[in-house]
């Protein structure tokens, strides 16, 4: 997947957030997941991190992910960072569950109303089944995976150990929910004939791209930050 939305540049803590947003407005999603107010003013990354009690290391690491740069293998994050990562991931779940997916569902529903073709009924059903799978996955992470990681990070090894769960199991369960999203996009871009309705179709596609982008970063955070850290602690 090509996620190089923007040219690569080194991010340092003296850069102003507002300039980074000019380069890549999708960082607004990151701010939201970090619970940082959009009114960033002239704050530098360092100032924002201090104000919101986030380590610069973590903030820059995730900002880099949003700009297409992976976290280097040897980067280590503190336990406090990782707890923050979990809050970040939970917040992105809220965004998927109550914001983006319902919005997409609504667009598809409207399309179906406007075009009584049978294909769109099927598309709606496709989406609903997909959404149900996504919800199941998100619930799984919220109720099993994240509590496990939190126990692990808060040194409640016994609780963590007795749960009979592990980072390894998590990475196995870690299914690819981006796959059907791609199918949906390809159906709309390559196959389904829908006449007119430009605005609605464009809104739907924009929403799909936005969701795809955030989901991609989401899984990168899990794969390159959370899971390696979890395995590290388990091996201690």
């Amino acid at each position, binding site marked *: 997947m090509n996620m190089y939305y923007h040219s690569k540049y080194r991010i340092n803590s003296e850069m102003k957030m507002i300039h980074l947003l000019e380069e890549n407005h999708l960082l607004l999603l990151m701010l939201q997941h970090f619970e940082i107010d959009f009114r960033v003013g002239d704050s530098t990354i360092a100032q924002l991190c201090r104000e919101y009690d986030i380590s610069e290391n973590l903030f820059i690491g995730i900002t880099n992910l949003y700009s297409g*740069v992976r976290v280097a293998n040897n980067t280590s994050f503190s336990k406090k960072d990782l707890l923050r990562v979990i809050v970040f991931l939970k917040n992105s779940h809220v965004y998927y569950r109550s914001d983006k997916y319902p919005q997409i569902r609504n667009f598809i529903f409207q399309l179906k109303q406007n075009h009584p073709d049978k*294909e769109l009924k099927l598309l709606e059903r496709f989406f609903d089944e997909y959404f149900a799978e996504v919800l199941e996955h998100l619930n799984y992470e919220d109720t099993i995976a994240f509590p496990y990681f939190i126990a692990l990070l808060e040194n409640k090894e016994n609780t963590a150990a007795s749960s009979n769960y592990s980072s390894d199991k998590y990475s196995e369960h870690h299914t690819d929910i981006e796959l059907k999203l791609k199918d949906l996009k390809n159906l709309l871009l390559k*196959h389904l004939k829908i006449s007119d309705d430009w605005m609605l179709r464009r809104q739907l596609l924009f929403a799909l791209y936005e969701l795809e982008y955030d989901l991609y970063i989401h899984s990168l955070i899990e794969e390159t930050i959370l899971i390696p850290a979890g395995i590290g602690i388990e091996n201690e």
Partner: protein
Amino acid sequence: MNKILQQTRQHIVILEASKIISEGLYGVLFHSEINCKIDHCDTLDEFFELFETKTPHILIANSMQFLNREKEVKKIRKIHPNIHVVGMDYMHMPNMNGLFDASFSLYDPEEQIIQTISKLFEKQPFAHQTKTDDDSLSEREIEVLTGIVNGLSNKEIAESLNISIHTVATHRKNITAKTGIRSQSGLTIYAISKEIISIDDFS
């Protein structure tokens, strides 16, 4: 101009710390007929970092960047034999056998630089050169697709068409490559929209 360079998008990385030179080369490439996407790295380490997520087709490097790092470059070349490495000659190109597939001088005319890059692709095997853009499914693929849509397993499809499971798997791969769709339910919608199957089978 070589056809592949025009038809399939080439990911080119320029490894050069001088802004003047990399921007100049950028301009030369963009104004050529090469269909490309260009990234830029100042240092070899930055390139290796990019390499963790991307496999570019062509690396155009200031040869000095490889100085004392020959082993690492050779290792990368071994792992990714398909990447073309082109050296930029600054009059005093160090002798680095086996690190470059081609090289040009900073004083070469633009056309010659493009030609140097273009020549690399003449040696490519035929299979790489002509990949048709035709995304329509073959008859066999349509039969396999019908099976998938009807919920048959690979084994059942193989039996019904009298072909091996392995062949079914290959067809499935090609169907996904052509349609861009992986899931069974997505393929169902595809099949209906292309009138391969009738909607009445799925009410």
